[in-house]
Structures are given as C-alpha cells and as structure tokens.
C-alpha cells in the first residue's frame, strides 16, 4: 500500500500549491474522457452508450436521454438462424398452445439470457446472443458506429464472475470500445429517483433483490427467489389448467402447456394484486370477469376468467400466501418479509431514512397494486414485530410466562391495570425508538435552528418514491460527467481479464479527484463486483 498512501500524500499536497498549470491544461482538453464541463462541439459524437442488461431484456440508448432508444429481448425468435423467417410466417412462437406440457424450467429457458445457476448456462451461447443483440441494437436503433464511443453498463452489483468476464470479453473483442464503465443498477435506480439513500426493491426475473442504499452506498442486500420467473411459471400453470379441467391443484405439479409469449402477455396486461386482505372485500371481487384469449386458440377465441383469479399467482408467488412464515426457506422469503428483513438489517439511522424512500423497480413493479400491497404488509409486519428479529411461538410463550410472573408477583387486586401496563411496556420495549415520540434534545434543537433553511428529511414513515429506472439513472450519471468507480479499459482488460483488477476496492479515488484521465490511471478495480 505504499503507492496508495503516496498518492494520497500528493493529493493533499496538490491543492495547496500556488498554481497547477498542468491540470488546467488537462481539464481544458476536450478528449471524451476528460472531465471538463459539457459544451465542446464534439460532445455529441462522443456521447456514451448506456446499456442495461438483465436476464430477459437489454435496454440501450444514449447518455443524457430519459428513455432508452430500444428494448431488446432474448427470446427464441432472436436466436433463430439468419434467413429463418418462421417467426413471421407462423404466428410468433410461444403464442399457441404447446403440443405437450413441458417442465416449468424448460419452458422459460429459451427466453432468458442467463440463469443465476451457471452450471446450466452455456457461456458460449450467451456470448453469441449478446453479440447478436448488440450488433442489431447498433444497426437498427442506435445507428452509430459500434465501439467508437464509451460504453456504460448498468449491471446488478452481484454478478457471477464468469458471466461478467465473458460479457466483457465479448464486448471488448468484438468491438473496439475504448473503455467500459460498470454502474450498479440499484444505485442508479436511486439516483433516477432523485435520492441519496433508498431501499431499492428490484422485482427482477430470477430473483427479487432488496438493496439498502445509504448515501449511494449499498449497505445490505437481501434476495429471494420469489420473482417474475416463478410468477410467470405460476401464471402458466394457471392458464394451462382450464384446458385440463378446473381442478387447479391437480395440474400444479404438471408441466405448462400454454405458450410463453401468450402467458407473458396475459401477465403484463392483466396480472394484478389484491389489496391487503380484508374480510368484507372478497365477496364482490368475483363479480368481475375479463375475457382473455383462450390458451388453446389465442388467435381466435376468447374466454372469460374471473378477474380475481388473475391475482392468484401474485398472491401465491410473491406473498407466499398459504405458507407459514416458518416454512419458508431463507432464499424464498415472501417480498414483504424480505423488505422487512432488509430494513431490519440496516442500522437504525439508515433504516429510518431508507424506509421512507422505498423504490420499486424491475418488471414486477408494473403489476398493479403490488407495490402498495407490499408496503401495507411491511407496515403491518413492523406493527407486529417491530424491529426485533426474535419471534415465534416459543418467544411468545416466554413472554407470556414472564408477564404472568410479573403479574403474579405483586399479587394484589389491581390485576387488570398492571397487565395492561406490562403489555404496553413490553410493546414499548420492542418498538423501535424511531416510532416513539423523540425526546427533545437541546443539541438536536440547536442543530435544527442552525440548518433552518435546509429541509428536514422525511424519516421513519413508510413512503414510496418512484424511480425512472436504472437505465435512466446511468444515463443521468454519465451525462453529468461523473465517472464510475469501475472503468475498465480495453488494453488492460485484454491483458489480464478480470484478474487484472486490483483487490482493493477503492484505490483509485485519489486519482479521480485529481482529475487524471482514464489513460493515466494505473490500476482498475471491480469495486463492488469484485
């Protein structure tokens, strides 16, 4: 570490030096990597390309625009041979019913770019798909020369190294990108919501991740396999079942016999989420029926489904209804539990900030009513458990026993009021301090008075903030000429690959502050991707 400390020393020394003509020169440079403010005439040419890649979709566009130019999928239509126009001749694959029920995993496999389980992923095939989809993106939508400008990738911050490595080497070896910047998608989503701290709930394809961000830093991440993939599979089973009679439970374990695209269409159009269960409400719901294309013949026939039935997959998959909390494994917690436990894992200060800045992103965030329901359930969880992670029957019994002890020990006639007191005090112990009325602290008051003009941030209440999504965040960050922590240069990557990254997660910060350009950075890091 002598090198780093050395750098730091020079860093602190530099500002105090009387003049730094060299740096002026640098910042006056209009090279694209320079950090001068925008305004040079060449800017337009050098606009970085922002790409967000997920397991199902790829969004691509230019920095500084609010929406991506295109969204591309990775379906079987996209991996046909060149000159194979069957997708146009027949109705697109995946709409009609399948001739034979298939396993739920096989059903989705063709449609996803990668899986979290890399044992089943053919990395070569993934490289092929990425190459083609990116080539088509450039040729059809971006309409610029591929590889001439910087590339910014918004990626989930937890990405298997083999995946990341083959993704980067495909990009670098196929095109001449001077450098690729990686930006964490959770943070980008928070930025696109205008926040510095947030709890980002990404209802993604393979898994739902809940990331606690504090001052742009990822503090905790919790994940669950209850996500869009299993939702889609459940919807597939539900739609397969009317074909084979109404008994839904019998076919549950069987394969899926409806087309994937058809199912996805139903899911995106009509999937919804019931508000938190209240007894009186259930009665009037089944009155609604909607007609959706019949799974056996989606081109011509329609058939009626009770609208409430279309909410069932969401209920069973995302909220794990009908399964006791204790039955759930760690990786398949229901979404409200996941959010709650993520909040719980945060330090109290951060928790208070994050809980009033909940950002929902990902494909599942579009499901109507889902976000609200999650928040409601989380708030009821907070009411029930507070922030203590100790819960369960035994604990409850213990508590009751203690209570009884406390009640019996005074052994006087004022049984009722004491028990009430005890209950409330027990409740109060469990409750988070953030829920109590804060004591008035004179230091706090003074600080308040000092920063009168700065607004007090909202804290401690559950609140939901809308984000423009990770892509927009990455575009925003890039257009503000901020540099990512992870900027991978072509030459350095081609020499050593990912292994060339320094272990130390933040060695290059001093560099960045001094305004050194990319070429002068001695080492690069993978930061949170390492």
């Amino acid at each position, binding site marked *: 570490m002598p090198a780093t400390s050395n750098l730091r020393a020079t860093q602190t020394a530099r500002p105090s030096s*009387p003049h730094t003509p060299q740096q002026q020169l640098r910042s006056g440079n209009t090279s694209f990597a320079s950090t001068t403010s925008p305004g040079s005439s060449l800017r337009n040419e050098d606009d970085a390309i922002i790409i967000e890649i997920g397991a199902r979709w790829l969004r691509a566009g230019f920095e500084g625009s*609010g929406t991506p130019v295109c969204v591309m999928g990775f379906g079987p239509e996209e991996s046909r041979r060149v000159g194979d126009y*069957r997708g146009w001749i027949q109705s697109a694959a995946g709409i009609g019913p399948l001739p034979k029920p298939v396993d739920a995993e096989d059903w989705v496999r063709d449609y996803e770019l990668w899986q979290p389980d890399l044992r089943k992923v053919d990395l070569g*095939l993934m490289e092929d798909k990425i190459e083609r989809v990116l080539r088509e993106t450039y040729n059809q939508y971006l309409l610029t020369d591929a590889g001439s400008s910087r590339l910014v990738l918004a990626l989930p911050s937890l990405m298997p190294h083999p995946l990341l490595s083959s993704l980067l080497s495909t990009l670098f070896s196929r095109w001449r990108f001077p450098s690729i910047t990686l930006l964490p998608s959770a943070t980008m989503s928070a930025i696109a919501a205008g926040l510095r701290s947030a709890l980002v709930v990404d209802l993604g394809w393979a898994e739902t991740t809940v990331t606690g961000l504090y001052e742009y*830093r990822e503090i905790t991440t919790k994940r669950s396999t209850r996500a869009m993939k299993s939702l889609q599979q459940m919807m597939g089973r539900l739609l397969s079942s009317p074909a084979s009679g109404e008994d839904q439970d019998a076919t549950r374990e069987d394969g899926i016999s409806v087309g994937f695209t058809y199912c996805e269409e139903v899911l995106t159009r009509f999937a919804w989420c019931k508000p938190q269960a209240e007894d009186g409400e259930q009665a009037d719901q089944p009155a609604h029926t909607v007609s959706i294309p019949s799974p056996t013949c989606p081109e011509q026939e329609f058939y009626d489904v009770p609208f409430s039935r279309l909410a069932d997959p969401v209920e069973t998959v995302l909220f794990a209804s009908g399964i006791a909390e204790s039955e759930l494994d760690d990786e398949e917690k229901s979404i409200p539990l996941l959010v709650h436990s993520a909040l719980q894992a945060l330090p109290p200060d951060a928790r208070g900030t994050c809980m009033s800045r909940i950002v929902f992103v990902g494909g599942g965030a579009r499901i*109507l009513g889902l976000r609200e329901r999650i928040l409601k359930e989380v708030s009821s969880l907070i009411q029930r458990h507070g922030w203590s992670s100790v819960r369960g029957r035994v604990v409850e019994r213990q508590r009751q026993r203690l209570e009884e002890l406390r009640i019996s020990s005074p052994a006087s006639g004022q049984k009722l009021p004491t028990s009430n007191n005890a209950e409330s005090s027990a409740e109060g112990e469990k409750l988070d301090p953030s829920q109590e009325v804060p004591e008035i602290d004179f230091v706090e008051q003074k600080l308040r008075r000092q920063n009168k003009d700065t607004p007090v941030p909202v804290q401690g209440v559950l609140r*939901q903030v809308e984000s423009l999504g990770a892509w927009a965040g990455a*575009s925003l960050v890039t257009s503000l000429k901020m540099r990512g922590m992870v900027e991978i240069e072509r030459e350095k*990557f081609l020499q050593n690959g990912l292994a060339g990254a320094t272990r130390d997660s933040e060695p290059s910060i001093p560099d960045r*502050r001094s305004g050194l350009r990319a070429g002068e950075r001695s080492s690069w890091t993978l930061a949170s991707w390492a």
Partner: protein
Amino acid sequence: MSRPFPYTYISCPCADTPVPNPARKRRSRESPQKSTPERDTEGNEDQNGTKQSDVKEKEEEEKEEEGEGEGEEQTFDPRSPRSNFSLYPPEQLLYCEDCHQIKCPRCITEEVVSWYCPNCLFETPSSMVRSDGNRCGRNCFNCPVCTAPLAVSSIENVTGNGSGQGPWVLSCGYCLWTTLDIGIKFDKPTNIRSQLQKMTDSTTGPAFDARSRQGSRAFGDLKSPLANFASIDEQSNTREPDAEQSTSQEDATPTPHLGVEARFAALKSFYRTQLSETSNSPSDPLSSEFGFSSPGALNRLMSLYASSSRLSGLYGGAKKPKSKPPVMREALTASEGLRIVPESADTALIERIASPDCGWDGVASISQRTEQSPDVRFVDELLPLPVLLRTKRAKRCKSCKHILVKPETKPQSTRFRIRLIALSYIPLPTLRPLAQPPASLIPGSAPNLDLNALAPLRPYHVLLTLKNHMFDIVRITLATPSVTPGSVASKVTVLCPQFEIGANSDVWDEALQNATAPLSDRITGMRGGEKVPEAGKVWEKGRNWTTVVLEVVPGTLPGSEAEGGQATGSDIAAVSQKDEDVLEIPVFVHMEWDAEAQLEQQNVGKASKPDDLVARELAYWMVLGVGRIQASL
C-alpha cells in the same frame, strides 16, 4: 426447418475461434482466486485447449490438413443452439480478399455511411440524426397499434365527407387507427413531427417555456460569487440547463404528472445545481472524501466535475471557508424530479382494466409498449411512432480492416462501390432430390418426393451441385460424418467426395467445349432416369458446376413406431416443434485452387507465367437441409 426444403447454409469459420477471454486463460493458470464453480474451470481448460489448438492452426496455416483433422474430432452440429449464430445463407456471406477467408456479420465491423428514412427516402444529415432521436423528422409515422405506416389525411377524408381542407390526422390504412382515437389533430399537413412534439410535451405544462428564463436567472443567483467568476466552464454550465428548459429550482408549483422525459430533465437540472453548489469549496478539508461530511460516492465523483483543482489552485491555500460546505441533498419537490407515489394510486387502474369497456384490447401489448414511453399501459395512451431511420453501412474486415462493402451514399441508389460477396469466391451449393429414386433400389417408391415427409430407414438420393464463380478450377473434397449428429441418427454417404469444378470461364467456352466433347457424355446426362448413382463417380458436370450424389438414410424419430415405441401425437408435435425431425447434414468442404499471385501489379510487364500461380485453400462447414422425417414408416 428454417427455409423451404431443400436448403443450404454455410457456417462461418469464425465460429471455431472462441472469444478470447483473457480471464479464462489467466484464471486456469493461477489458482482460482474466487471460488468459481467446478464445471466452469473445467470449461476453461477446455476452452484453453481449443485456443491453443487454434494458435497451432494459425501457425501451420499452410497445412490445413491438420486443422481439418482437429475439426473432424468435433463435427459441426447444426442442432446445437450455438450453430444458429454461425450459420448463414450462402448469399449473405462476404469474403475478404486479404485474409482469404469467409466473413460473416460477426467478423466484420460496420461504419455508417448515410442515414435515411425508409419511408420517404430522404437522407438525414448526420448532425440531425441524434437530435431527431434516430427517427424521421418529417411526416413519416408508424401506427402504434399495428406498426403499419400512417398516412396524413384530412378529417373529412376519414369521416367521409370530402373537401380537402381542415384539420389533419394520421390514419392507419391497415387497422383503421387514427390520431383522433387519442384526440390529436394537426393544423397543417406538413411538419407533423414537430407539431406532435409540441402537443405531447404540453403535459409538462405550457408554463415551462415561460418559466425557463426566470429559472435560469434564479439558477445564476444561486451560485456563489466565487463560482461566478471562476471559469468559463461554469458559465457554460449555467447556460446548459437554460437551453434544456429546466424548471427553476425555487418554483415549487407541483407539476402534477411529469412525463418521463420531463422528470428526467428536472432531475438532471437538479443534479446540475447541486453539483455546482456543493463543489464551491473544494479546498475545504471536510469536503474531501475522507471527511465525514460527504461520504457519498457521487459527491466524490462530482468533485472532478467542476474543475475543483483549478479553483483550489487559485484560492485554496489562502482562503478557508468558515461554514460547513454544503452537502448535496436529495430531490425534494416534484420540480426537482421527485415523485412520491400517492397511496392507492393503482386502484383506479385496476378498476379500469377490469371494466368491460377496457378489456384485452384496451391494454397495450408488450410489443406495442416496447417502443413507447415506459409509463404507457393502455392503448389509448399510445402515440404514433416516427419511422426509425435506416443506415447504409460500409463493412470492413474485422481483422485486416479492408473494406468489404461500400454502398453508394444516396438512399435511392441500390448500387455498391465495393461488394465482395462470398459467392464469387466459394462455390454456390444447391441441393435437390434425385427426382425418381431408381426402381432397382426401392421397389414401389412414390414417384413424387415429399421432402416434408421423408420416410425413415429408406435410402434417398440427393443431388448436391456446386457452382464455381471463380475463374480458376477448384478441387473440392467433401466430408460428412457417416451418421448425423443429434437424436435422429441418419446415415449419410457422399458417393463422390473428391471432384473438380471447372472455371467460370466465358460462356462461349462452354459452347465450344461441348461441341468438341464427346456427345455420349451429354447424352447420358440427358437420360438422367436411367443413370444409376455410382460410388466414386460424379453425377453430372457442366462448365463451372459439378453435381454429386449423396445417399441418405433417414433415421427414426425417437419414440416413433419404427423404433417400436408408441408415439402419441403430442410427442411427435413436440419433436417437430424442436426441429428434431429435420434432416440436416453437416458437410465439411475443403477447396483448393491455384490463384493468380497477388503481386501481378508488380510484374505487369512480364507475361504471366503459370509459375505465378499460388495454391490457395479454404475450408468450411456447410449444412444441407434435406427434409423432414416422417414419424411413421
């Protein structure tokens, strides 16, 4: 089945060279620093192995036989999912004359020559392309519902009572959608794009423009005097949001529902102000990333942005700001881009979806939505889509940078200045079934052959014709695996694996040749019916083409009757959906020819001698799609 039977595909040789992955090389050599999955490291070694062999191949480029030997170890499998990405119809491939190699879209780089609208064929200047969002800036629109082109027509035309005047609408001739459905009319029949832009932007409030001036002034006021005379950069900074019509920071009038773009612009200007505000005192020790006041990574990053070092150079040493430096804050109001989701925002939407007047068709489909703003949910929120521009692109070889294709820039012109298509270098393969399988072999076979229903276990003869477009005689060696890969094992035999194809000489040569050639050859060619395919003999030969016979015995489908299993209809359908019943034959083609030396410019003076000939060779896999195998015998 990807095209009507029979078809041919050529696999670009680039498929054999894996993406060079420096990490793999390194990781397998070192002890894996991360706990990579077991299988993966195995794969690495595997990859490594093939890579080494590739290097070897390159070293011994002259001895192609060795490379071929290795190629035979791993027969090209047309069924593997990866082969879909390397197989191309022969006419889509290019050829690099310098590398002497086939080039597919994967091994070329492309440069945009010109942009044009495919609808109006107007060329868009490169400076306009990006500002128009890569879409036509004139009157070309696609229907948001069915993607058919929209026509500008007057309302009277649409409603049906004549006169050519009045407000105009865009209407779709296919699905009868008009902009009236979303309540949009145009005053003029021209410049629809800008008219539409104005109308759709109005969601952000017409006050936007009026406010921008005041906003920019406020923006200037906010800046500290230090920043004001600091640099020209800063000045241009202030101008930027001005140009983008940002909302002013003070103006807290809640804009009820900003569109995505408007929110993005608001956020952008918000961050800009924050950045310039907070980077005023960069010399303050507290504001450094090691201090506690600004732990954010963003804050750290942005300190670069406002040329902090320069400022600090001028003032940093002398002046210490007393007050705590401002910390970047988060967006607080809607005008800063914050949007707090109101409670029970979705209930109305749920009711709308469930209501009978919305229904399935009222909700936008996935494909309709992909092109629209991400907020769109219902069909009546869809906006007409300006037509995406297209490009004419020059193509270069990725490895040697030589131009392979260079089109003329004019959109109307379909001509090319340079176009090196592979078919002028490699023989064009065509396939056709031998019309009548000789009666001696299969008695009682159906006279007309249905390639979509090949009977399993019955020998078929297919004629493979290779047509040479080069001016040199080409020697061809064909090789196929004796049993096709995949679950359906069909037996394949090339009856004549080695043959020559004549040069693509003048057409007159053929006439003259034929005149001199013994007539008997041609006659046997005519009387194809009597001819019997013989091993080691060419079936037919012409001026620049040669036909050989392949004998194919289709295998039985898994679980079909022929195999003794009970085939259910659904099983067969599943098989056919996965294309497992398609009979595709991988054929390795190795061609050799004596080309004229490239140095001919140098010895222009001399008469070209036969010594100048250079032996060249090329090898690649091709895939012959013969037909679909029937389930039953």
